């Protein structure tokens, strides 16, 4: 089973699922084919490459936050592993 994901620019570090993905499913973008590691709902993000904890994640040329943990390619990227540079809560300091 294959599902598609939307990228804005070739240097994007994440892509947006255009349908729900289950773990093990192939996710196809304009430039990548990778395997989803997690269940990822439609319009949520998948990591297109391995992202180290602390790295700034870019999409469409804009920083969209910082990895709060190591994120392997194919993983679901969301509030559990991506934090705002503007967040003020303790765990993000």
């Amino acid at each position, binding site marked *: 089973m294959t599902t598609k994901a939307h990228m804005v620019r070739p240097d994007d570090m994440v892509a947006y699922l255009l349908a729900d993905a289950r773990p093990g499913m192939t996710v196809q973008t304009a430039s990548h084919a990778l395997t989803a590691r997690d269940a990822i709902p439609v319009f949520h993000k998948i990591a297109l490459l391995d992202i180290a904890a602390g790295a700034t994640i870019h999409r469409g040329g804009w920083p969209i936050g910082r990895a709060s943990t190591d994120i392997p390619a194919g993983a679901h990227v969301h509030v559990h592993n991506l934090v705002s540079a503007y967040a*003020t809560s303790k765990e993000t300091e």
Partner: protein
Amino acid sequence: MSDRDTFLGYPRPVGRPGIRNHLLVLNCTGLTDAAARRVAAALPGTVFAGTMYGMGMIAADGDFHTAALSGLATHPNCGAVLLISADRTRLDQMIAVVEASGRPYAALGLDDTNHDAQVLSQRAICDGAQLLRDLSTMRPVPCPMSDLFLGFECGLSDPSSGLVANPLLGQIADWLVDAGGSVVLGESIEWLGTEDELARRAATPEVGAALTDAVSNRLAMAHAAGLDLLGTNPNAANIRAGLSTIEEKASGAVLKAGSRPIQSVLSYAEAPAAPGLHLMDAPSYSPESLTGFVAAGAQMILFTTGLGNSYCSALAPTLKLTANAGTARNLPCQIDFDASAGFTGQTLADLAPDLMAGIIATASARLTWGEIIGEGAESISRFGAAI
């Protein structure tokens, strides 16, 4: 001229033409809210707007409120106004504003009816009926696109908004600005993280500084209240839909601004002094935000949504668009324009002409779903405590 060069509008003695020809029942004081609503209900086809507040608003808060009421009273889509107020002072102030605009109006104050709200309502209904009859003889005429002023909003966004729907509005912004028209977008907290890039597009260094100051002031307000933006903006619904951070949401939201120079940073409800692209430093909650644009004179709102959002302006037809195919399918009587083909092979340049045609059709007469089902309200922001 091609069809894309004009829309049908109602000329006004001063300012932009209307894309509708409403009788506005404008309630100018909180004390008269219920009476003014009875008046509007007795006059089918009128638009009701106004305030729940009155005396006691001070300093900038009071000034913003007066500016917003004045903007609503002289809105292009309002062919005539029925002003209703408890006190003579507010009524006289609004009469002066409406007279300067050359619109037909009637004005009724509780001070003039021995504070009998029933007498006020009865007189207002008779006056309003006459104004409606006069309005019914007006006919729209072709107007150039430079007469159009659009407000851009996003509400209940999901990632489809920032990926397709908002950049599509960016194309519309460029098109209208190039045609000599005007565009405003607000929600200043959603410029966060993009403010330096936006400031580089400012027409002057002062405008750039006003823009970055607006963002840092909003962020300071949030932090002073002990607020972590996560959970507030993006909110819980945004997060369920896949938006993770304010900067992810903001960098999608500002794409509505297209690529042309930013002429000014407007205060709440402030009318732009010149055509072009403008930002309004204002709260992001849609009811307050839309009324800020409408009071500034925007005749139509283009409103992108990811999950669906039923809110509309009362005075400015509010055209809803989404790029989420599921939302478009689930909300056939809310979504006026389905941009989801932007995910299945169509480019923004493919979608833009259809949306331009939809904007012109809506400006010229076609009702939005919100107008058909009777959505629509105005809500003037408050900026401080009252005494």
